[in-house]
Protein backbone atom coordinates (compact mmCIF):
# COMPACT_ATOMS: atom_id res chain seq x y z
CA UNK A 1 0.00 0.00 0.00
CA UNK A 2 2.83 2.31 0.97
CA UNK A 3 4.49 1.65 -2.39
CA UNK A 4 1.29 2.49 -4.20
CA UNK A 5 0.76 5.73 -2.31
CA UNK A 6 4.39 6.79 -2.72
CA UNK A 7 4.45 5.95 -6.43
CA UNK A 8 3.91 8.39 -9.28
CA UNK A 9 1.06 6.35 -10.71
CA UNK A 10 -2.04 7.92 -12.11
CA UNK A 11 -5.13 6.57 -10.41
CA UNK A 12 -8.76 6.77 -11.38
CA UNK A 13 -11.46 7.20 -8.75
CA UNK A 14 -15.05 6.33 -9.48
CA UNK A 15 -17.94 6.03 -7.01
CA UNK A 16 -15.66 5.46 -4.04
CA UNK A 17 -13.51 2.84 -5.74
CA UNK A 18 -9.83 3.09 -6.65
CA UNK A 19 -9.09 2.05 -10.23
CA UNK A 20 -5.44 1.26 -10.90
CA UNK A 21 -3.71 1.21 -14.29
CA UNK A 22 -4.46 -2.11 -15.96
CA UNK A 23 -1.53 -4.36 -16.75
CA UNK A 24 -1.72 -6.29 -19.98
CA UNK A 25 -0.97 -9.61 -21.51
CA UNK A 26 -2.66 -11.06 -24.59
CA UNK A 27 -5.41 -12.83 -22.64
CA UNK A 28 -6.17 -9.70 -20.62
CA UNK A 29 -6.42 -7.68 -23.78
CA UNK A 30 -8.89 -10.17 -25.24
CA UNK A 31 -10.94 -10.03 -22.05
CA UNK A 32 -10.84 -6.23 -22.11
CA UNK A 33 -12.17 -6.20 -25.63
CA UNK A 34 -15.00 -8.58 -24.70
CA UNK A 35 -15.80 -6.50 -21.63
CA UNK A 36 -15.81 -3.32 -23.67
CA UNK A 37 -18.34 -4.81 -26.06
CA UNK A 38 -20.64 -6.08 -23.32
CA UNK A 39 -20.38 -2.91 -21.23
CA UNK A 40 -21.42 -0.67 -24.08
CA UNK A 41 -24.68 -2.61 -24.19
CA UNK A 42 -25.30 -2.76 -20.44
CA UNK A 43 -23.88 0.68 -19.52
CA UNK A 44 -27.27 2.27 -19.01
CA UNK A 45 -28.44 -0.43 -16.61
CA UNK A 46 -25.34 -0.65 -14.46
CA UNK A 47 -25.20 0.95 -11.03
CA UNK A 48 -22.37 3.37 -10.30
CA UNK A 49 -19.01 1.80 -9.51
CA UNK A 50 -20.00 -1.49 -11.13
CA UNK A 51 -17.57 -1.13 -14.03
CA UNK A 52 -14.62 -3.47 -13.80
CA UNK A 53 -12.52 -1.65 -16.35
CA UNK A 54 -12.65 2.03 -17.18
CA UNK A 55 -11.10 3.47 -20.29
CA UNK A 56 -10.29 7.15 -20.24
CA UNK A 57 -7.90 9.23 -22.33
CA UNK A 58 -6.73 6.03 -24.00
CA UNK A 59 -5.73 4.52 -20.64
CA UNK A 60 -7.27 1.47 -19.04
CA UNK A 61 -7.93 1.25 -15.31
CA UNK A 62 -9.08 -1.78 -13.36
CA UNK A 63 -11.30 -1.70 -10.28
CA UNK A 64 -9.42 -2.49 -7.06
CA UNK A 65 -10.12 -1.20 -3.58
CA UNK A 66 -13.09 0.46 -2.00
CA UNK A 67 -12.00 3.71 -0.40
CA UNK A 68 -14.39 3.32 2.53
CA UNK A 69 -13.09 -0.16 3.24
CA UNK A 70 -9.50 1.05 2.83
CA UNK A 71 -10.12 3.73 5.44
CA UNK A 72 -11.84 1.36 7.85
CA UNK A 73 -9.07 -1.23 7.64
CA UNK A 74 -6.04 0.96 7.15
CA UNK A 75 -4.76 0.13 10.64
CA UNK A 76 -4.52 -3.53 9.65
CA UNK A 77 -3.27 -2.87 6.12
CA UNK A 78 -0.35 -0.64 7.08
CA UNK A 79 -0.05 -0.62 10.84
CA UNK A 80 3.20 1.38 11.09
CA UNK A 81 1.94 4.11 8.84
CA UNK A 82 -1.36 4.28 10.73
CA UNK A 83 0.46 4.56 14.07
CA UNK A 84 2.55 7.41 12.66
CA UNK A 85 -0.52 9.26 11.35
CA UNK A 86 -2.32 8.70 14.66
CA UNK A 87 0.63 9.97 16.67
CA UNK A 88 0.92 13.08 14.50
CA UNK A 89 -2.81 13.68 14.71
CA UNK A 90 -2.97 13.29 18.50
CA UNK A 91 -0.06 15.61 19.03
CA UNK A 92 -1.71 18.10 16.66
CA UNK A 93 -4.85 18.15 18.80
CA UNK A 94 -3.05 17.63 22.15
CA UNK A 95 -4.94 14.46 22.84
CA UNK A 96 -2.18 12.55 24.61
CA UNK A 97 -3.31 11.38 27.97
CA UNK A 98 -2.51 8.20 29.84
CA UNK A 99 -4.22 9.22 33.03
CA UNK A 100 -7.51 7.54 32.30
CA UNK A 101 -5.60 4.27 32.60
CA UNK A 102 -5.67 4.54 36.35
CA UNK A 103 -9.43 4.61 36.51
CA UNK A 104 -10.01 2.29 33.60
CA UNK A 105 -7.39 -0.17 34.78
CA UNK A 106 -9.12 -2.23 37.45
CA UNK A 107 -6.03 -4.36 38.00
CA UNK A 108 -3.91 -1.45 39.11
CA UNK A 109 -6.58 -0.31 41.56
CA UNK A 110 -6.85 -3.82 43.02
CA UNK A 111 -3.09 -4.10 43.45
CA UNK A 112 -2.81 -0.62 44.89
CA UNK A 113 -5.71 -0.57 47.30
CA UNK A 114 -6.26 -4.22 48.16
CA UNK A 115 -3.05 -6.22 47.73
CA UNK A 116 -0.50 -3.61 48.81
CA UNK A 117 -2.05 -2.82 52.26
CA UNK A 118 -1.78 -6.51 53.15
CA UNK A 119 1.98 -6.55 52.74
CA UNK A 120 3.13 -3.16 54.01
CA UNK A 121 3.38 -2.26 57.67
CA UNK A 122 1.02 0.56 58.44
CA UNK A 123 0.51 0.10 62.16
CA UNK A 124 2.39 2.30 64.57
CA UNK A 125 2.65 1.10 68.14
CA UNK A 126 -0.38 -0.81 69.28
CA UNK A 127 -2.85 0.83 66.94
CA UNK A 128 -4.40 -1.54 64.44
CA UNK A 129 -6.50 -0.10 61.72
CA UNK A 130 -7.14 -0.99 58.13
CA UNK A 131 -6.14 1.77 55.74
CA UNK A 132 -8.62 3.19 53.29
CA UNK A 133 -7.75 4.44 49.82
CA UNK A 134 -6.81 7.90 51.09
CA UNK A 135 -4.67 6.43 53.87
CA UNK A 136 -2.77 4.34 51.35
CA UNK A 137 -2.18 7.34 49.13
CA UNK A 138 -0.93 9.32 52.14
CA UNK A 139 1.42 6.49 52.99
CA UNK A 140 2.75 6.46 49.43
CA UNK A 141 3.28 10.22 49.60
CA UNK A 142 5.27 9.73 52.82
CA UNK A 143 7.49 7.00 51.42
CA UNK A 144 7.95 8.11 47.82
CA UNK A 145 9.29 11.38 46.57
CA UNK A 146 6.77 12.38 43.93
CA UNK A 147 7.83 15.12 41.48
CA UNK A 148 5.99 18.42 41.86
CA UNK A 149 4.72 18.42 38.28
CA UNK A 150 2.33 15.56 39.04
CA UNK A 151 0.62 17.67 41.70
CA UNK A 152 0.36 20.53 39.21
CA UNK A 153 -1.09 18.21 36.59
CA UNK A 154 -3.56 16.93 39.15
CA UNK A 155 -5.07 20.41 39.52
CA UNK A 156 -5.64 20.62 35.76
CA UNK A 157 -6.89 17.07 35.73
CA UNK A 158 -9.48 17.67 38.39
CA UNK A 159 -10.77 20.75 36.61
CA UNK A 160 -13.51 19.44 34.27
CA UNK A 161 -13.69 22.66 32.30
CA UNK A 162 -10.30 21.96 30.69
CA UNK A 163 -11.48 18.66 29.29
CA UNK A 164 -14.86 20.04 28.34
CA UNK A 165 -13.13 22.76 26.34
CA UNK A 166 -10.93 20.16 24.64
CA UNK A 167 -14.00 18.13 23.82
CA UNK A 168 -15.62 21.13 22.16
CA UNK A 169 -12.42 21.78 20.20
CA UNK A 170 -12.39 18.23 18.96
CA UNK A 171 -16.04 18.50 17.98
CA UNK A 172 -15.11 21.53 15.89
CA UNK A 173 -12.24 19.63 14.29
CA UNK A 174 -14.47 16.72 13.48
CA UNK A 175 -15.42 16.85 9.88
CA UNK A 176 -16.79 14.32 7.48
CA UNK A 177 -14.36 13.84 4.66
CA UNK A 178 -16.04 13.34 1.31
CA UNK A 179 -14.53 10.80 -1.02
CA UNK A 180 -12.34 12.34 -3.73
CA UNK A 181 -14.09 13.47 -6.91
CA UNK A 182 -14.51 10.94 -9.67
CA UNK A 183 -11.79 11.08 -12.28
CA UNK A 184 -8.04 10.89 -12.68
CA UNK A 185 -5.96 11.48 -9.59
CA UNK A 186 -2.28 11.20 -8.80
CA UNK A 187 -1.13 8.75 -6.12
CA UNK A 188 0.18 11.70 -4.14
CA UNK A 189 -3.27 13.35 -4.09
CA UNK A 190 -4.82 10.08 -3.00
CA UNK A 191 -2.29 9.85 -0.18
CA UNK A 192 -3.15 13.39 0.94
CA UNK A 193 -6.86 12.57 0.91
CA UNK A 194 -6.23 9.35 2.81
CA UNK A 195 -4.25 11.20 5.49
CA UNK A 196 -7.05 13.76 5.94
CA UNK A 197 -9.69 11.05 6.09
CA UNK A 198 -7.67 9.05 8.61
CA UNK A 199 -7.17 12.14 10.75
CA UNK A 200 -10.92 12.75 10.74
CA UNK A 201 -11.49 9.14 11.71
CA UNK A 202 -8.94 9.31 14.52
CA UNK A 203 -10.43 12.53 15.85
CA UNK A 204 -13.89 10.95 15.77
CA UNK A 205 -12.64 7.97 17.75
CA UNK A 206 -10.83 10.26 20.17
CA UNK A 207 -14.03 12.21 20.61
CA UNK A 208 -15.65 9.09 21.99
CA UNK A 209 -12.62 8.46 24.18
CA UNK A 210 -12.68 12.01 25.53
CA UNK A 211 -16.34 11.65 26.38
CA UNK A 212 -15.54 8.47 28.28
CA UNK A 213 -12.60 10.14 30.01
CA UNK A 214 -14.84 12.99 31.12
CA UNK A 215 -17.23 10.51 32.67
CA UNK A 216 -14.38 8.68 34.37
CA UNK A 217 -12.90 11.88 35.70
CA UNK A 218 -16.18 12.69 37.32
CA UNK A 219 -15.51 9.66 39.51
CA UNK A 220 -12.45 11.48 40.83
CA UNK A 221 -14.31 14.68 41.55
CA UNK A 222 -14.19 14.03 45.31
CA UNK A 223 -10.50 13.18 45.42
CA UNK A 224 -7.95 15.66 46.79
CA UNK A 225 -5.47 17.18 44.32
CA UNK A 226 -2.58 15.75 46.37
CA UNK A 227 -3.95 12.23 46.09
CA UNK A 228 -4.69 12.74 42.43
CA UNK A 229 -1.05 13.74 41.89
CA UNK A 230 0.05 10.43 43.43
CA UNK A 231 -2.33 8.50 41.19
CA UNK A 232 -1.03 10.40 38.18
CA UNK A 233 2.51 9.51 39.14
CA UNK A 234 1.64 5.81 39.47
CA UNK A 235 -0.24 5.85 36.16
CA UNK A 236 2.72 7.44 34.41
CA UNK A 237 5.44 5.23 35.91
CA UNK A 238 3.37 2.04 36.19
CA UNK A 239 5.46 0.86 39.12
CA UNK A 240 5.86 1.39 42.84
CA UNK A 241 7.91 -0.15 45.65
CA UNK A 242 7.31 0.34 49.34
CA UNK A 243 8.65 -1.65 52.31
CA UNK A 244 9.77 -4.60 50.25
CA UNK A 245 6.49 -4.81 48.35
CA UNK A 246 6.16 -3.56 44.81
CA UNK A 247 4.57 -3.88 41.44
CA UNK A 248 5.58 -2.88 37.96
CA UNK A 249 4.11 -2.81 34.51
CA UNK A 250 5.47 -5.35 32.07
CA UNK A 251 5.38 -4.61 28.35
CA UNK A 252 2.82 -2.47 26.62
CA UNK A 253 -0.19 -4.73 27.08
CA UNK A 254 -0.95 -3.37 30.52
CA UNK A 255 0.10 -6.45 32.49
CA UNK A 256 1.71 -6.14 35.92
CA UNK A 257 3.90 -8.21 38.16
CA UNK A 258 3.39 -7.95 41.91
CA UNK A 259 6.37 -8.88 44.07
CA UNK A 260 7.59 -9.07 47.63
CA UNK A 261 11.14 -9.31 48.90
CA UNK A 262 11.84 -12.32 51.09
CA UNK A 263 14.84 -10.86 52.91
CA UNK A 264 17.75 -13.10 53.91
CA UNK A 265 16.80 -16.39 55.56
CA UNK A 266 18.42 -19.52 56.86
CA UNK A 267 17.61 -23.14 56.03
CA UNK A 268 19.14 -26.16 57.75
CA UNK A 269 20.24 -29.41 56.19
CA UNK A 270 20.05 -32.97 57.46
CA UNK A 271 23.10 -32.42 59.70
CA UNK A 272 21.68 -29.15 61.10
CA UNK A 273 24.20 -27.07 59.18
CA UNK A 274 22.93 -23.62 58.30
CA UNK A 275 22.68 -22.16 54.82
CA UNK A 276 22.12 -18.45 54.38
CA UNK A 277 19.95 -17.68 51.37
CA UNK A 278 20.15 -14.21 49.81
CA UNK A 279 17.26 -11.81 49.46
CA UNK A 280 15.05 -12.30 46.42
CA UNK A 281 11.75 -11.18 45.00
CA UNK A 282 8.88 -13.61 44.89
CA UNK A 283 6.50 -12.35 42.23
CA UNK A 284 3.14 -13.12 40.69
CA UNK A 285 2.68 -12.11 37.06
CA UNK A 286 -0.86 -10.85 36.60
CA UNK A 287 -1.88 -13.26 33.92
CA UNK A 288 -3.73 -16.50 34.63
CA UNK A 289 -2.85 -19.07 35.87
CA UNK A 290 -1.21 -17.25 38.76
CA UNK A 291 1.97 -18.99 39.91
CA UNK A 292 4.72 -17.66 42.17
CA UNK A 293 8.09 -17.06 40.52
CA UNK A 294 11.47 -15.84 41.72
CA UNK A 295 12.53 -12.86 39.65
CA UNK A 296 16.27 -12.96 40.36
CA UNK A 297 18.81 -15.56 39.28
CA UNK A 298 18.38 -17.84 42.24
CA UNK A 299 18.90 -21.36 43.49
CA UNK A 300 16.83 -23.12 46.08
CA UNK A 301 15.68 -26.70 46.80
CA UNK A 302 12.28 -25.72 45.40
CA UNK A 303 13.64 -24.28 42.17
CA UNK A 304 14.61 -26.60 39.36
CA UNK A 305 17.61 -24.65 38.03
CA UNK A 306 19.89 -21.79 38.94
CA UNK A 307 18.24 -19.24 36.72
CA UNK A 308 16.05 -16.13 36.69
CA UNK A 309 12.26 -16.04 36.54
CA UNK A 310 11.80 -19.64 37.74
CA UNK A 311 8.44 -20.89 38.96
CA UNK A 312 8.54 -22.20 42.51
CA UNK A 313 7.75 -25.93 42.71
CA UNK A 314 4.67 -26.33 44.85
CA UNK A 315 3.01 -29.57 45.81
CA UNK A 316 -0.79 -29.79 46.08
CA UNK A 317 -1.20 -26.27 44.80
CA UNK A 318 -3.75 -25.41 42.18
CA UNK A 319 -2.94 -22.03 40.68
CA UNK A 320 -6.01 -19.78 40.68
CA UNK A 321 -7.26 -18.46 37.36
CA UNK A 322 -9.24 -15.50 38.55
CA UNK A 323 -7.70 -12.13 39.23
CA UNK A 324 -8.73 -11.12 42.73
CA UNK A 325 -6.77 -9.51 45.55
CA UNK A 326 -7.24 -12.62 47.72
CA UNK A 327 -5.81 -14.90 45.04
CA UNK A 328 -2.77 -12.69 44.50
CA UNK A 329 -2.10 -12.47 48.23
CA UNK A 330 -2.55 -16.23 48.57
CA UNK A 331 -0.13 -17.04 45.73
CA UNK A 332 2.50 -14.59 46.96
CA UNK A 333 2.29 -15.97 50.50
CA UNK A 334 2.41 -19.51 49.22
CA UNK A 335 5.59 -18.73 47.26
CA UNK A 336 7.33 -16.96 50.15
CA UNK A 337 6.33 -19.62 52.67
CA UNK A 338 7.62 -22.38 50.42
CA UNK A 339 11.02 -20.70 50.09
CA UNK A 340 11.31 -19.85 53.78
CA UNK A 341 9.62 -22.77 55.50
CA UNK A 342 8.88 -25.42 52.87
CA UNK A 343 12.16 -27.34 53.06
CA UNK A 344 12.24 -30.27 55.47
CA UNK A 345 15.83 -31.24 56.30
CA UNK A 346 14.81 -34.74 57.45
CA UNK A 347 12.84 -35.57 54.32
CA UNK A 348 15.05 -33.57 51.97
CA UNK A 349 11.95 -32.59 49.99
CA UNK A 350 12.04 -30.39 46.90
CA UNK A 351 13.99 -30.79 43.67
CA UNK A 352 17.40 -30.65 45.38
CA UNK A 353 18.84 -31.46 48.76
CA UNK A 354 20.91 -28.93 50.69
CA UNK A 355 23.51 -31.46 51.80
CA UNK A 356 25.28 -33.82 49.45
CA UNK A 357 23.70 -37.24 49.19
CA UNK A 358 24.79 -40.34 47.38
CA UNK A 359 21.28 -41.04 46.20
CA UNK A 360 20.91 -38.45 43.52
CA UNK A 361 22.87 -36.94 40.72
CA UNK A 362 23.38 -33.42 41.95
CA UNK A 363 22.77 -30.51 39.65
CA UNK A 364 22.63 -27.63 42.10
CA UNK A 365 24.98 -27.27 45.04
CA UNK A 366 24.42 -25.05 48.04
CA UNK A 367 27.85 -25.27 49.68
CA UNK A 368 28.57 -21.63 48.92
CA UNK A 369 25.56 -20.63 51.07
CA UNK A 370 26.80 -22.57 54.11
CA UNK A 371 27.62 -20.56 57.20
Amino acid at each position, binding site marked *: MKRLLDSNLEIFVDSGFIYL*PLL*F*DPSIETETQILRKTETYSETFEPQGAKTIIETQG*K*HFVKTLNLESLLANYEKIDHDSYVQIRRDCLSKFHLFSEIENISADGKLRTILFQVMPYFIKTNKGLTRKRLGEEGILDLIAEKINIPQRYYEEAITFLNPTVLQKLLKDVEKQQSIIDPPENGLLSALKLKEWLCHALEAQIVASEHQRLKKVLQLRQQFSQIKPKHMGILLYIAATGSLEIDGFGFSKTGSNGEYIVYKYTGEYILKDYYARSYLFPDCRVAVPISAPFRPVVLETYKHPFLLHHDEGQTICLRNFTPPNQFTADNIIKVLEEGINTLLYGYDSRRRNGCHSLDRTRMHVRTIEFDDYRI
Partner: protein
Amino acid sequence: MKIKQYIKKERAQKKKKKPFRRDIFNKISGLVCRYELDNGILKRLDKAVDYLPEEKTISGRFRPKISFKFPLFSLATKEEYHLAMAIIQKIDNPYLQFAQSLEEMLLCQLLYRLNPALSHEQLMQYHFETLVLEERAKTEKMKT
Protein backbone atom coordinates in the same frame (compact mmCIF):
# COMPACT_ATOMS: atom_id res chain seq x y z
CA MET B 1 -8.10 -51.02 -31.44
CA LYS B 2 -11.36 -51.17 -29.64
CA ILE B 3 -13.20 -47.98 -29.04
CA LYS B 4 -12.98 -48.46 -25.24
CA GLN B 5 -9.21 -48.80 -25.33
CA TYR B 6 -8.95 -45.87 -27.67
CA ILE B 7 -10.92 -43.64 -25.32
CA LYS B 8 -8.84 -44.78 -22.35
CA LYS B 9 -5.61 -44.07 -24.19
CA GLU B 10 -6.83 -40.67 -25.29
CA ARG B 11 -7.85 -39.76 -21.75
CA ALA B 12 -4.51 -40.93 -20.36
CA GLN B 13 -2.71 -38.75 -22.87
CA LYS B 14 -4.83 -35.78 -21.90
CA LYS B 15 -4.12 -36.36 -18.22
CA LYS B 16 -0.38 -36.49 -18.79
CA LYS B 17 1.44 -33.51 -17.36
CA LYS B 18 2.93 -31.23 -19.94
CA PRO B 19 5.96 -29.13 -19.04
CA PHE B 20 5.12 -25.48 -18.64
CA ARG B 21 6.63 -23.30 -21.34
CA ARG B 22 6.71 -19.59 -21.20
CA ASP B 23 4.97 -18.15 -24.23
CA ILE B 24 6.60 -15.70 -26.60
CA PHE B 25 4.82 -12.72 -25.07
CA ASN B 26 6.20 -13.48 -21.60
CA LYS B 27 9.71 -13.64 -22.99
CA ILE B 28 9.59 -10.50 -25.10
CA SER B 29 7.73 -8.57 -22.44
CA GLY B 30 10.40 -9.69 -19.97
CA LEU B 31 13.11 -8.37 -22.28
CA VAL B 32 11.24 -5.09 -22.82
CA CYS B 33 11.02 -4.58 -19.05
CA ARG B 34 14.58 -5.71 -18.41
CA TYR B 35 16.16 -3.40 -20.98
CA GLU B 36 13.51 -0.67 -20.49
CA LEU B 37 12.97 -0.60 -24.24
CA ASP B 38 10.96 2.04 -26.03
CA ASN B 39 9.66 2.46 -29.57
CA GLY B 40 13.22 3.17 -30.76
CA ILE B 41 13.81 -0.58 -30.71
CA LEU B 42 11.45 -0.99 -33.68
CA LYS B 43 13.70 1.24 -35.80
CA ARG B 44 16.73 -0.69 -34.65
CA LEU B 45 15.02 -3.90 -35.65
CA ASP B 46 14.52 -2.53 -39.17
CA LYS B 47 18.23 -1.90 -39.43
CA ALA B 48 19.15 -5.11 -37.67
CA VAL B 49 19.10 -7.34 -40.75
CA ASP B 50 22.89 -7.05 -40.92
CA TYR B 51 23.30 -6.19 -37.28
CA LEU B 52 26.57 -8.03 -36.70
CA PRO B 53 29.41 -5.50 -36.91
CA GLU B 54 32.39 -6.29 -39.13
CA GLU B 55 34.95 -6.45 -36.32
CA LYS B 56 32.93 -9.16 -34.70
CA THR B 57 33.14 -11.48 -37.66
CA ILE B 58 36.15 -13.31 -36.36
CA SER B 59 35.93 -17.00 -37.00
CA GLY B 60 35.98 -19.29 -34.00
CA ARG B 61 34.52 -16.63 -31.75
CA PHE B 62 32.35 -18.18 -29.05
CA ARG B 63 29.96 -16.25 -26.86
CA PRO B 64 28.28 -17.98 -23.97
CA LYS B 65 24.51 -17.81 -23.97
CA ILE B 66 23.22 -15.56 -21.23
CA SER B 67 20.54 -17.25 -19.18
CA PHE B 68 17.83 -14.85 -18.16
CA LYS B 69 15.03 -15.88 -15.82
CA PHE B 70 11.87 -14.77 -17.51
CA PRO B 71 8.79 -14.21 -15.40
CA LEU B 72 6.26 -17.03 -15.39
CA PHE B 73 3.43 -14.67 -16.21
CA SER B 74 4.45 -11.30 -17.46
CA LEU B 75 2.14 -8.35 -16.99
CA ALA B 76 3.08 -5.17 -18.75
CA THR B 77 1.85 -1.62 -18.85
CA LYS B 78 -0.11 -0.66 -21.91
CA GLU B 79 2.92 0.89 -23.64
CA GLU B 80 5.14 -2.08 -22.83
CA TYR B 81 2.43 -4.46 -23.99
CA HIS B 82 2.01 -2.74 -27.33
CA LEU B 83 5.77 -2.58 -27.82
CA ALA B 84 6.18 -6.28 -27.02
CA MET B 85 3.39 -7.17 -29.45
CA ALA B 86 4.93 -4.91 -32.13
CA ILE B 87 8.32 -6.63 -31.69
CA ILE B 88 6.68 -10.06 -31.96
CA GLN B 89 4.84 -9.00 -35.11
CA LYS B 90 7.92 -7.40 -36.62
CA ILE B 91 10.34 -10.27 -36.06
CA ASP B 92 7.74 -12.98 -36.59
CA ASN B 93 10.03 -15.99 -36.71
CA PRO B 94 10.31 -19.07 -34.50
CA TYR B 95 13.82 -18.19 -33.30
CA LEU B 96 12.54 -15.23 -31.32
CA GLN B 97 11.39 -17.34 -28.41
CA PHE B 98 14.99 -18.52 -27.91
CA ALA B 99 16.36 -14.98 -27.61
CA GLN B 100 17.68 -14.41 -24.12
CA SER B 101 19.00 -10.90 -24.53
CA LEU B 102 18.49 -7.74 -26.54
CA GLU B 103 21.47 -8.60 -28.72
CA GLU B 104 20.02 -11.98 -29.58
CA MET B 105 16.68 -10.35 -30.32
CA LEU B 106 18.42 -8.06 -32.84
CA LEU B 107 20.27 -10.99 -34.42
CA CYS B 108 17.15 -13.10 -34.66
CA GLN B 109 16.08 -12.01 -38.14
CA LEU B 110 19.57 -12.32 -39.58
CA LEU B 111 20.03 -15.81 -38.17
CA TYR B 112 16.68 -16.95 -39.49
CA ARG B 113 17.54 -15.59 -42.93
CA LEU B 114 20.91 -17.38 -42.91
CA ASN B 115 19.55 -20.71 -41.77
CA PRO B 116 15.89 -21.24 -40.96
CA ALA B 117 16.41 -24.89 -40.10
CA LEU B 118 18.40 -24.70 -36.87
CA SER B 119 17.34 -27.13 -34.18
CA HIS B 120 15.83 -26.09 -30.83
CA GLU B 121 18.84 -27.55 -29.00
CA GLN B 122 21.26 -25.38 -30.98
CA LEU B 123 19.16 -22.29 -30.42
CA MET B 124 18.91 -22.97 -26.72
CA GLN B 125 22.58 -23.82 -26.29
CA TYR B 126 24.46 -21.27 -28.38
CA HIS B 127 24.44 -17.53 -28.50
CA PHE B 128 22.85 -16.25 -31.71
CA GLU B 129 26.05 -14.41 -32.53
CA THR B 130 28.02 -17.67 -32.50
CA LEU B 131 25.42 -19.27 -34.71
CA VAL B 132 25.48 -16.35 -37.15
CA LEU B 133 29.26 -16.51 -37.37
CA GLU B 134 29.09 -20.23 -37.97
CA GLU B 135 26.52 -19.79 -40.72
CA ARG B 136 28.62 -17.09 -42.36
CA ALA B 137 31.71 -19.24 -42.17
CA LYS B 138 29.78 -22.03 -43.85
CA THR B 139 28.66 -19.81 -46.74
CA GLU B 140 32.19 -18.42 -47.21
CA LYS B 141 33.55 -21.97 -47.32
CA MET B 142 30.96 -22.85 -49.92
CA LYS B 143 32.00 -19.86 -52.04
CA THR B 144 35.66 -20.80 -51.95
